């Protein structure tokens, strides 16, 4: 972490360094040049001076040498004593032998060569020597030698010293001046630097540098601010994009985790395929068991599906149709599961796919549901076909019977048998429709049971009575084995009878003519066990679980011996389960007969069997003429048959076929009882009922609903609309007669 001040010091130091370096180099070069020029000049001057001095001596000594006068020569040399720099001097004759010599007094460094050195000059650090010829008449007659002490080195040293002082002073002055001037330059840069650091440290792009000048530095500040602006903008965009990306990624991860989809990514060029861990775990494999190879998934594909998958893939790669295929894949445990494989290929500029990615979704449950739906749909279709067939079956004998009855001259025996057959067929049909309605009620939870202590023996007896026509028609032998002591259960006697009757009817139906049906009832601990056994066609083992399912029968192919809707056993099981009981089927196989075992929780043994109800004494109302009954039904035939029956048993009747005429007929007749159909062409039976109740003359009449709608709801609605009783069509005439008599009795009282 840098401190701003440290940064500032650095740039100032650099500027100073630049200043010192450049100025120093310039000063050094200038000083060195000056020094060199000076030294050269000094050198030349010294040389010239020395040569001149020697030449003067030579000139002065010409005669002395020419005329061999050492004394004069010495005198000449002695003149040099006036020169403080001269250390020594000498004259040599033409034989290079010393002729005269001079040494400055007290000079230790004086050196006089014993033989004249050659003409020339030599400079040492402190001394310079020169040898010049002495000429006379243009001819050399000897040499003069002079040794001087020169101040060149000292001068150079002194000069260098002054140069150093001048250079240092210049640098110091320049630095002081630069220090003042630099601030104008460095301050904005330091400002920019401070702002940049703030941006870096705080990560915000909101700070700006202040512009202080209009020069290039000012432009730099402007550019820097503009750059910050742009950076801030981009950072914001980047941040938003990043956030969006993160959110998208998180969403993707969540979606990928949340869904059962596994992901795959196929690099076609490299020949590798990435399978997400999720994909592997969906199939139950670990990473090593599922190699990242393009064929890995194909190897697990069910042989029946592989071709379709390959076709879809080929079609996608060649013509870019969406790649989507459903196939079964083998899991690690060997089981097959359904998967939806989808994907898209990436293509290069030539349209050649080079990469493909997609997902793998477990659709086993959907597939199963789909299969179930298909099966259920098929079952429903079959059921409807069978239902139509079953409903039409009884109609043929009924029509035939009617035609026989209409023919005059039919013997009493024939009429009796015909009526018996018609009654049987009608009963069968009514029961069929009742069963259907019951199933509808069970499925919608609208069935109503009236629980009461019930004798199982009575139930069995009633059921036997119900099924006797079918048993007798098929010629079956029936063995009944009832316990000596009756078994009591809590239940709805009618429904229990219906359940047992259904089982007996079933046995009769699925046993070839002349078969044997056995029924046994016994107590088994806290339960009653009822077993109904036949020696009929039996049930294949794989069907044992399904026989109680709705439509189970039709699924296995209609058209066998008994035919049927396959709703009977469903009804049996549903009713028994509503009583807390159960039913089980067992069979040794096809043709081996079937055994159905019913178990019901029973009540304590001590409860005595209730005394059989005293038979109702049908009492014809005595008194003031025949009672009056108004029949209202839009079905003219139904109304006519009903009025015919009522007049046969002594009522005065009138029929009406819609709501309006019903009301006027009621006022005209003033009946004790009105049998009112609910579905009328102009209005509903409920409306008619309310209208009658509102009518002063009709308010006390007894209203009985006659309807095909037999549900609890319908019953309740009828009572709410003012009806006193509710009967479901087709009405059992005996029941109607009983009701009418009890109503009239009540009115009579």
């Amino acid at each position: 972490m840098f401190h701003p001040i440290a940064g500032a010091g650095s740039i100032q130091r650099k500027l100073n360094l630049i200043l010192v370096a450049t100025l120093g180099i310039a000063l050094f070069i200038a000083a060195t040049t000056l020094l060199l020029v000076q030294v050269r000049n000094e050198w030349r001057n010294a040389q010239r001076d020395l040569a001149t001095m020697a030449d003067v001596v030579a000139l002065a000594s010409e005669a002395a040498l020419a005329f061999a006068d050492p004394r004069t020569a010495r005198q000449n040399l002695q003149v040099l004593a006036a020169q403080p720099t001269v250390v020594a001097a000498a004259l040599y004759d033409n034989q290079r032998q010393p002729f005269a010599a001079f040494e400055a007094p007290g000079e230790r460094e004086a050196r006089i060569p014993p033989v004249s050195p050659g003409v020339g000059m030599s400079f040492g650090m402190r001394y310079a020597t020169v040898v010049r010829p002495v000429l006379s008449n243009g001819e050399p007659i000897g040499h003069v030698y002079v040794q001087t002490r020169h101040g060149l080195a000292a001068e150079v040293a002194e000069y260098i010293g002054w140069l150093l002082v001048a250079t240092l002073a210049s640098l110091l002055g320049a630095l002081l001046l630069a220090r003042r001037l630099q601030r104008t330059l460095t301050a904005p840069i330091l400002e920019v630097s401070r702002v940049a650091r703030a941006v870096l440290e705080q990560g915000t792009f909101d700070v700006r540098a202040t512009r202080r000048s209009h020069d290039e530095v000012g432009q730099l500040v402007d550019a820097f601010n503009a750059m910050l602006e742009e950076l801030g903008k981009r950072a914001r965009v980047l941040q938003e994009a990043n956030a969006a990306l993160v959110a998208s990624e998180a969403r993707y991860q969540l979606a990928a985790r949340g869904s059962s989809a596994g992901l795959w990514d196929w690099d076609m060029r490299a020949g590798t395929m990435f399978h997400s861990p999720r994909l592997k775990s969906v199939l139950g494999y670990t990473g090593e068991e599922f190699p990242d190879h393009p064929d890995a998934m194909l190897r697990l594909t069910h042989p029946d599906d592989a071709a379709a998958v390959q076709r879809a893939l080929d079609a996608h790669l060649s013509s870019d149709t969406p790649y989507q295929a459903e196939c079964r894949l083998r899991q690690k445990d060997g089981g097959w599961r359904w998967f939806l494989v989808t994907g898209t290929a990436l293509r290069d500029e030539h349209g050649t796919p080079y990469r493909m990615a997609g997902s793998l979704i477990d659709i086993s449950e959907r597939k199963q549901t789909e299969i179930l739906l298909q099966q259920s749909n098929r079952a429903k279709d079959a059921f409807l076909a069978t239902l139509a067939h079953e409903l039409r079956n009884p109609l043929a004998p009924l029509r035939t019977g009617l035609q026989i009855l209409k023919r005059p001259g039919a013997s009493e025996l024939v009429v009796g048998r015909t009526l018996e057959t018609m009654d049987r067929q009608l009963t069968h049909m009514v029961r069929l429709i009742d069963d259907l309605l019951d199933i509808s009620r069970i499925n919608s939870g609208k069935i109503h049971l009236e629980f009461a202590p019930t004798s199982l023996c009575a139930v069995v007896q009633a059921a036997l009575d119900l099924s006797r026509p079918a048993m007798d028609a098929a010629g079956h032998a029936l063995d009944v084995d009832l316990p000596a002591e009756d078994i009591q259960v809590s239940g709805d006697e009618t429904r229990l009878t219906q359940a047992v009757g259904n089982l007996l009817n079933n046995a009769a139906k699925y046993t070839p003519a002349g078969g044997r049906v056995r029924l046994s009832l016994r107590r088994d601990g806290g339960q009653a066990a009822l077993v109904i056994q036949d020696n009929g066609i039996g049930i294949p083992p794989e069907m044992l679980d399904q026989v109680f399912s709705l439509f189970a029968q039709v699924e296995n192919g209609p058209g066998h011996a008994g035919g049927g809707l396959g709703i009977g056993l469903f009804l049996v099981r549903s009713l028994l389960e509503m009583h807390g009981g159960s039913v089980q089927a067992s069979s040794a196989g096809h043709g081996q007969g079937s055994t159905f075992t019913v178990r019901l929780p029973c009540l304590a043994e001590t409860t005595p069997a209730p005394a059989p109800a005293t038979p109702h004494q049908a009492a014809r109302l005595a008194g003031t003429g025949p009672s009056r009954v108004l029949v209202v039904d839009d079905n003219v035939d139904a109304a006519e048959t009903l009025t015919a029956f009522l007049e046969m048993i002594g009522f005065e009747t009138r029929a009406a076929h819609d709501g309006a005429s019903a009301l006027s007929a009621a006022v005209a007749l003033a009946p004790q009882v009105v049998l009112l159909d609910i579905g009328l062409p102009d209005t509903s039976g409920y409306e008619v009922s309310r209208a009658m109740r509102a009518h002063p003359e009709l308010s006390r009449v007894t209203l009985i609903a006659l309807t095909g709608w037999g549900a609890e709801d319908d019953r309740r609605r009828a009572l709410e609309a003012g009806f006193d009783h509710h009967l479901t069509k087709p009405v059992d005439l005996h029941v109607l007669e009983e009701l009418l008599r009890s109503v009239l009795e009540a009115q009579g009282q």
Partner: protein
Amino acid sequence: MLALVRSLLAVYAGVLLLHAAASAQGLGVARDSAVKAAFLFKFGSFVEWPPGTLRPGAPLVIGVLGDDAVATELERIAQGRAVEGHPVAVVRLRDGTEAEALHILYAGGVREARIREAVNGVRGPVLTVTDVPVGGQPGPVLVFSQEEGRVRFHASLAAAAVRNIRLSAKLLAVAQQVEGR
């Protein structure tokens, strides 16, 4: 080639001069003659004659009277040499009367009267040199002398003035004695 010869000669003259200085006594007159001849030759370099008396390229004429040894030596020295650009001509004189256009006259020998007559008899700007101070008017300009066994000379500024010649300061500096200063 000429320069080499010259320097060799100069060396020879120097050798002679040294010998004369080292052992003047031993070598005697012959040695003195050589030194004197060398001096006579060199004097030309330290004397200025009036303009017109020694034209450029004209020979410097040295007359020798009464001393054949010196004359011979001088002729030898001057052979092929020049003084200040002037070739040197040596003239042996029998009498002082037969004076020609001389620049230097050396009067030697033992007869002083003859020497005096020759020196004083010659007219014009002539550097007159003798071995002895013969006197008379104007008298010789230079007179050879002996000092510590070595040849020296005396100079007379008065005689030179009469002769209208100038002796250089250098020459005067090495003169043993200068009259009329």
